[in-house]
């Protein structure tokens, strides 16, 4: 590991806040970002207020925003997200930008992710029982068409599985050029999976590897909680803690920790 782990550090930030900060750093300035809901929405707003002031947010309900919404959003169609938007239009207006390949990064959640970054948000399973989840929403579209996708999810062994039970949103499929063989755009696909324990990235073969662990997390803990034999980066990093500026931004946006509880 590149930096020493400090297993007993007293954090002055929550795990959610760490994940939001890590997600925010996946956005470069001036990029077009398919924002989504919940933690990614917060991550986008944090990025806007810190290192990526000119990032542009796309919301699949038909909204494009260059200025951050002035209030906490519970949904992308909350009135503060529409007033003063760059553009309010149809879902197709937004999806068109995605399909043109103009969208740099999209954020996704999922019930399951597998070894090749395929996502399941349709059918969960618990103790051998299938249970129904809400479904794709725009996740499949973003996973197919954004240049990069970033997933945020809890790191649990039955959610990081060798093979997703249902491919709601294709990642690298079975690896090794699978996306291109399917007809998906070149230079698209999963870029990072930010979990409650660390950050996974993807090799050129399409397989996930552990790129960083969160402060205080042991590598063994990550491996034990992953449903396949997870490779570890030669130069494993420690996920950088949220900066003061990032924390200030997210707390200003979500003072009651609705999304970062």
């Amino acid at each position: 590991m590149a930096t020493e782990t400090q297993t007993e550090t007293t954090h002055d930030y929550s795990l959610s806040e760490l994940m939001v900060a890590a997600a925010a750093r996946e956005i470069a300035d001036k990029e077009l970002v398919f924002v989504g809901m919940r933690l990614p929405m917060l991550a986008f707003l944090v990025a806007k207020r810190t290192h990526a002031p000119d990032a542009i947010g796309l919301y699949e309900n038909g909204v494009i925003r260059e200025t951050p919404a002035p209030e906490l959003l519970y949904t992308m169609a909350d009135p503060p997200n529409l007033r003063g938007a760059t553009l309010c239009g149809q879902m197709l207006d937004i999806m068109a930008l995605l399909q043109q390949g103009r969208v740099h990064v999209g954020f996704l959640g999922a019930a399951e992710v597998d070894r090749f970054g395929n996502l399941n948000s349709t059918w969960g399973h618990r103790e051998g029982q299938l249970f129904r989840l809400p479904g794709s929403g725009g996740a499949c579209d973003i996973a197919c068409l954004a240049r990069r996708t970033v997933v945020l999810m809890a790191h649990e062994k039955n959610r990081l599985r060798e093979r997703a039970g249902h491919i709601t949103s294709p990642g690298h499929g079975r690896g090794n050029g699978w996306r291109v063989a399917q007809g998906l755009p070149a230079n698209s696909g999963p870029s990072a999976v930010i979990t409650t324990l660390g950050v996974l990235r993807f090799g050129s073969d399409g397989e996930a590897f552990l790129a960083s662990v969160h402060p205080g997390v042991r590598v063994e803990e990550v491996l034990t909680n992953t449903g396949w034999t997870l490779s570890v980066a030669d130069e494993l990093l420690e996920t950088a803690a949220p900066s003061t500026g990032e924390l200030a931004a997210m707390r200003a946006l979500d003072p009651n920790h609705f999304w970062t509880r």
Partner: protein
Amino acid sequence: MTKTSKVLSMQEAISRHVPSGAMVLMGAQMEQMIPFSAGHEMIRQGRRDLTLVGPISDILFDQMIGAGCVSRVMAAWVGNVSAGVAYCLRRAVEQNVPRRVDLVDYSNFTVALALHAGALGVPFMPTYATLGSDILAKNGNLREFSSPVSEEKLVAVRALRPDVTILHVQRADEFGNAHIWGNLGVAVDGARAARKVIIIAEEIVAPDVIASDPNRTLVPGFLVAAVVQDPWGAHPSPVQGYYGRDHAFFTQYHEQSRKLEDFEHWLERWVVRIPDRPEYMNQLGACRSEALGVREHAYSAPADFGY
């Protein structure tokens, strides 16, 4: 001109235009302007075997599934956007309670494209979306094919033409010409693809108001079968410029729909025993509705259509 008004009461509009077995599009504007009052009237009138269509549904589909109105859902996402899963959907799909519901899974984009094809009058729309997914593998309305103009794989999204599209809008005239603003989701194509459109309006205004801004008239009246004036009909979802989202109501519904028995109480209290939206708002209470009202108006700059 001999035009006749299309204004009906909610009861009449649903009674005349939404039969059991119909394919109904609701929730076209995503988390905004969900036609809850129309859906509730369908529950009260005991509709059965509906096919519900929409990109996402923020609890309205869940309520109608729980009430037993639905036999099929063609959607990308059914749940509670700010609170999580849809318990009635789960009971229906996992346990056939109160009855079996077939889910036809789409992505948001492919729902939009299916309606776009319907609106454009072509049998399908091509897309790269869903390639490699199990959505494509399992949804018979999505089919892989080879591009006729390039060496590419594409997905053909089969056109959908709902029997009825129900849109909640900010304002309309009595002939159905409707102004909508804010995020539009699939409202435009949803209306134009449909065989019938029902407009639920916060306000019915003079035709001159609508005609003053024909670029905002996203649904022309000649496509509209009925217009219902039903203020607050979209509650707990927001209507830009009229009221905000009642987040707490969504959270409360989440808790109160977790168990079947609790859901049945919720349904009795908020739908079955309620005759119409004014009574619903009475029950909600003036305190709550005032808190949701517009605190600061923000009017669009005028566009001059003069010459």
